[in-house]
């Protein structure tokens, strides 16, 4: 099983207290595809906070299949607090979600900006507070 590294493309990755960091390699590859310091030009991405990986969900969730990751903070600020204010946090969240759409093995891409599954619009409640990314 692969692990999400503590640094991705120079961006620091922090983990919540209960996060079990066991994922398939494709999740790591998907993060490497969209977690970059300059993902949103003019708005440096320094740090993300992983709130869930292989934990806090029940089968058959993709999390419990090691195929999903949630990110709930950007540069130390909760998405649920900062996103409605616009600015850098919104720009970065929007850019991460947009970038993940070009990842070949993408499945779900749910967050404040996009709600897509397999590249198609997919209405789903919630996800104003974190980005949920999963792979096939």
């Amino acid at each position, binding site marked *: 099983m692969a692990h999400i590294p503590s640094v991705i493309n120079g961006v620091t990755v922090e983990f*919540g*207290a*209960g996060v079990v960091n066991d994922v398939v390699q494709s999740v790591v590859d998907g993060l490497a595809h969209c977690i970059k310091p300059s993902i949103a030009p003019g708005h440096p991405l320094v740090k993300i906070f992983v*709130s*869930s990986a292989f*934990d*806090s*969900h*029940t*089968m*058959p*969730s*993709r*999390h419990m*299949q090691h195929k999903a990751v*949630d990110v*709930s*903070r950007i540069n130390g600020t*909760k*998405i*649920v*607090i900062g*996103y*409605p204010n616009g600015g850098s946090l919104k720009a970065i969240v929007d850019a991460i979600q947009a970038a993940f759409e070009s990842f070949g093995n993408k*499945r*779900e891409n*749910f967050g*404040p900006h996009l709600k897509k*599954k397999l590249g198609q619009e*997919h*209405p*789903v*409640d*919630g*996800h*104003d*507070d*974190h980005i*949920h990314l*999963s792979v096939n």
Partner: protein
Amino acid sequence: MRRTPCALIVIAAAAVLALGCRNGQPAPAESEAPSLTAALSALTGTYSWRDDLKRYHYSAKPELEALLAARNREDTVAALVECLDNTTQSGSTLDGTPVALGIVCYEALTQLVYHEPTGRDGDVASDWPGRLSPRPSPAEMRAAKEAWKKVVATKSYSFL
């Protein structure tokens, strides 16, 4: 300095919280709920529709964050879930009229944790009774509480 009644209530709630701490540790669960709900009831936030977000937005989220940061997280989750069906009027409003205290508790709960319901295919389910709009029916509030109680029982939530 002249203080408003709401400000006095917030100060009183903070004092109750401070007295509830021992040796710098958060108060135990049984004393968490009364002071927390009093503080939440005293908040004077407003809900307004945001076209850009496609949902209602609560104005007092920074104040909520300050309240949540001072407390034991697990005890706070349990107390907030217990409050979800509370129909008592709060100091927060939508369109000029008070929203139920349970809605402010829901706002606090979903600023602290989230739950992702799962469909049979393993993907995130499209809807879930644990979600509430700012003006729900009492039945919807009860259903949300029951849904969240199951989430707490299975520890299937994540801290934001």
